[in-house]
């Protein structure tokens, strides 16, 4: 049967290897200890005004407010130059 492309298909995982690489860049740049959790998420928000796609990096230091870095690119396109310098 000739089916339309499904725009609602469940989202795949965004490149685990690249995600690990971004975490490593962030850890090095910010000099983070092992007890700090770094979260990397690709967001494609449907809300008007939000970028079509962006990578949100959460730096979760114990007992501190989460620090957020936003890169208006897909995870695949993020480079170390998009991240803050240590």
């Amino acid at each position, binding site marked *: 049967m000739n089916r339309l492309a*499904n725009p609602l298909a469940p989202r795949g995982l965004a490149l685990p290897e690249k995600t690990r690489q971004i975490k490593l860049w962030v850890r090095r740049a910010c000099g983070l200890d092992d007890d700090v959790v770094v979260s990397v998420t690709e967001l494609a928000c*449907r809300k008007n005004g939000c970028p079509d796609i962006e990578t949100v990096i959460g730096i979760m230091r114990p007992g501190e407010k989460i620090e957020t870095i936003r890169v208006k690119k897909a995870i695949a396109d993020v480079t170390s130059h998009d991240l803050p310098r240590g």
Partner: protein
Amino acid sequence: MPLEASQKMPVTVLTGYLGAGKTTLLNRILSEQHGKRYAVIVNEFGEIGIDNDLIVDTDEEVFEMNNGCICCTVRGDLIRIIESLMQRRDRFDAILIETTGLADPAPVAQTFFVDDDVRQKTTLDAIITVADAKHLLGELDHAHEAQEQLAFADIVILNKTDLVAPAELKAVEARIRRINPTAAIKHSIRCNVPLDEVLDRGAFDLNRVLEVEPDFLDPGHDHVHDDHVTSFSLVTEASIDPRKFLPWIQMITQKFGIDMLRMKGILAFKGDEDRFVVQAVHMLLEGDHQRPWKAGEKRVSRLVFIGRNLPKDLIEDGFLKCRAEMDSLVALNA
């Protein structure tokens, strides 16, 4: 390597208003022999009768990934704890999260759809809401949190049923149904539900969308309660045109997602031998082909919306226009 769905750690979320019986259920899950080992994330450490290092206490920490956008808001504390727990994943089979009585269930649920690390390692199994049969009606009148916890539920454990008369119990159940017609309701005394009826349910699996037939009340039933959260269902026996439906449901989700707490549906697309299923939590929308329609199975399309002040007439009109051919459509109020 990404984990297969079957290798992901199932996560059950336990919500419920203050004093409903969440901790009683939690202690049962932790103490009874059911062959599964649980890691538990709790807010009130002291109330758990069991002490082991797989019980982790936490403070709710809302993480707005996109400034102010409710749909991109997750729970930072859960991301941290799940990361830490998964380093010991050989020591347990599933995770249980107990939220506070006043917690907003949306960021908890969204953590499992938005955050890539969490999605890679875990899968949201079901949201269980424990409700106190004696006090629920009063709580629903005064607390939006109590309504939203019911709205998000896949399973409602209607607890303390021994404390109410049969007529009162019927009224409580009817009120729950008006808010959430798709949840399975289990009656209990001291949360004595069979645990296999509430754990390992796969409620967010697209293969099980609307497995529980929505239970709508007779439209003539009294509507004296002006609930903050309500529900409605749209049904048609006419086949649906996917070229109209798919962009329409995306538009509806984008426009009304902030107030659309949950949505589920099964669609019979014209010329398609498979059922198409959709589900959403706020703006997080997904859908896919599920299984072939069975011989003799009535090809009925149904969408169930649960939300805050959703414009039923407008949504109904849009759905009607997605029919491949004009046919009768029935909208039922909850």
